[in-house]
């Protein structure tokens, strides 16, 4: 990992966040999916808890296997997303880095990332006997339409009423506007940080951005999140200006598609460093920049803005749009190739990937490789197999250069 000074601040921020969540007596706790409209929760002073983020932390700490085994022992199939299994296990054993998540008062789940989360959250709702609110964000086949926006906005209005009932006070629209502003500001910094990677050599690589995702996922909508990314932005911008590379001797610039492999961060980092290959941009980390994509004039109505942002996530749109987006990134970031992580856990992210690889290679004339792995389950990962494929891919970039 590139040694950013800001990193220690992130640790503080995340520790404080989990500490408050574990100890609060006043604030309600809601478990929430990574792509759900958290702004509504912050507007009502509810603490959002992200099982996905926690599952990733467990895997990065090499604790996911034990937790998944506990879930599998209760009958959860190995074919279910490893995030879900890790969290079921963390709940059963009260395990992982913070000893389990604080019990929820209700759940908020959005289907823009996958449909697994519906069943996953139903399990949790039954276990804790708490209400579950589902925001159904339809798949965007070809472009956002008014129907899609209205359908989603209508659910946001229901959500406000739901939150008013849960908290016993009227929904706070003023606070929502404030939270939304903070959320947009954080997303804007995040995007600016990621776009600094257009610099050759890049001052930040994608393994860094994976590590620095924590606050934008869990704390967007708070001032702390904005401050953090502002500081990180300044640091990375300074490095870009000074041409300090995140991968010394950068020779190859590569896109990474799909989630990271959380339990292999260190090894992959060394692997890519040795080969002077920088992972420059990822569809995954980019997903949290969405709220900043819209100009104020274009989206004056905050509900439509939120609806557009939460519908318009990479994994919620169709093949043509994905390929268009990917080709754009290949040029914009001056890439020499791309890696697609076909992720056993995340079917909606991985479906059609081989076809995507062919098409993207053809359109850009640059090599790409598909590796079969998993973001959280080390039991389906083989170092030798994956590194053989990655090496062959790097050789083909060498041959093409």
């Amino acid at each position: 990992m590139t040694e950013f000074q800001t990193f220690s601040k992130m640790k503080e921020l995340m520790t404080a966040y989990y500490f408050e969540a574990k100890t609060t007596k006043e604030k309600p706790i809601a478990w929430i999916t990574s792509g759900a409209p958290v702004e509504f929760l912050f507007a009502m002073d509810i603490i959002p808890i992200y099982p996905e983020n926690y599952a990733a932390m467990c895997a990065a700490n090499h604790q996911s296997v034990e937790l998944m085994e506990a879930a599998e022992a209760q009958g959860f199939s190995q074919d279910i997303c490893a995030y879900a299994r890790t969290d079921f296990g963390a709940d059963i054993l009260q395990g992982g880095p913070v000893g389990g998540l604080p019990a929820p008062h209700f759940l908020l789940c959005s289907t823009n990332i996958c449909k697994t989360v519906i069943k996953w959250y139903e399990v949790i709702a039954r276990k804790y006997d708490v209400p579950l609110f589902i925001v159904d964000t339809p798949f965007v086949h070809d472009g956002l339409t008014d129907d899609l926006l209205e359908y989603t906005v209508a659910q946001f209005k229901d959500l406000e009423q739901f939150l008013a009932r849960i908290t016993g006070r009227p929904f706070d629209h003023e606070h929502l506007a404030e939270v939304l502003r903070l959320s947009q500001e954080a997303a804007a910094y995040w995007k600016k940080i990621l776009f600094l990677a257009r610099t050759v050599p890049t001052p930040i690589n994608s393994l860094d951005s994976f590590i620095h995702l924590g606050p934008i996922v869990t704390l967007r909508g708070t001032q702390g999140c904005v401050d953090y990314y502002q500081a990180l932005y300044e640091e990375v911008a300074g490095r870009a200006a000074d041409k300090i590379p995140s991968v010394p001797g950068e020779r190859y610039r590569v896109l990474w598609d799909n989630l990271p492999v959380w339990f292999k961060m260190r090894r992959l980092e060394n692997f890519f460093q040795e080969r002077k290959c920088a992972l420059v941009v990822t569809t995954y980390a980019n997903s949290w920049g969405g709220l900043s994509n819209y100009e104020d004039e274009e989206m004056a109505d905050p509900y439509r803005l939120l609806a557009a942002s939460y519908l318009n996530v990479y994994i919620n749109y169709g093949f043509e749009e994905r390929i268009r987006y990917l080709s754009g990134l290949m040029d914009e970031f001056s890439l020499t190739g791309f890696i697609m992580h076909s992720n056993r856990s995340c079917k909606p992210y991985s479906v059609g990937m081989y076809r995507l690889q062919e098409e993207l290679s053809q359109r850009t004339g640059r090599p790409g490789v598909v590796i079969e792995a998993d973001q959280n389950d080390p039991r389906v990962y083989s170092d030798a197999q994956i590194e053989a494929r990655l090496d062959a891919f790097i050789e083909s970039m060498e041959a093409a250069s």
Partner: protein
Amino acid sequence: MRFWGGIDVGSLSADAVIIDEEGRLLGHAILPTGRDSREAGSRAYAGALEAAGLTPGDVVRVYSTGYSRARVREAEGAKTEIACHARGAHALYPDVGTIIDIGGQDSKAIQVGKGGRVLNFVMNDKCAAGTGRFLEVMAGALETPLDHLDELAAQSTETLTISSICTVFAESEVVSLISQGKKPADIAMAVSRAIARRTVGLATRVGVSGRVVMTGGVAKNRAVVDLLAEILGAPVDVPDEPQIVGALGAALFARDERG
């Protein structure tokens, strides 16, 4: 005279070759990799030197390839199997267009351009279905030595199908076919067809063009090679010793490095 070496340490076999300035093969050795891949590489290299009647001092440089290429003591450089199979096959068949390599844990299809350059490649996904390991397990279930599997298949008279892709499930299919009293020859044929069909899927993805050459240990199984040719509708050439093509490629890379 100057000589170069190539060592390919794979998941199942460690193969080494010695070549001269013209790229002629002077000696080779094929040994099981076993538990200690570093040792296996050294032994294979020693075997190839002995076969060539040379000593380590006669060799200018050695390159390695294969899964354990980074662990080969004698090697000064390393290349992936993809590059080495392409290089080696191209040296043997200058008009090669497509290479199908099936080793112990991997199967791959490589599209080769001018000068043995890799244009594109695909490898099997992470499961062992369709690799040499699959054949080994089936040979075990049939209680037939691996190198007799093709002779056995040649006596097949009835067409059977193995439908499972998974090696473990396919093995239990074989076991149940045996217990149903099916002929081992027919089962051997069905097993060979299963692997051939899976491989054709891979080859089609990369695109089959030009001369098709098969390398790797599984190319020693005539039944698989013939079935591949039949399903592809194109002849499939197999070098005299398909298992050393990767090592040959590595040796050629060693030779072509300056100095």
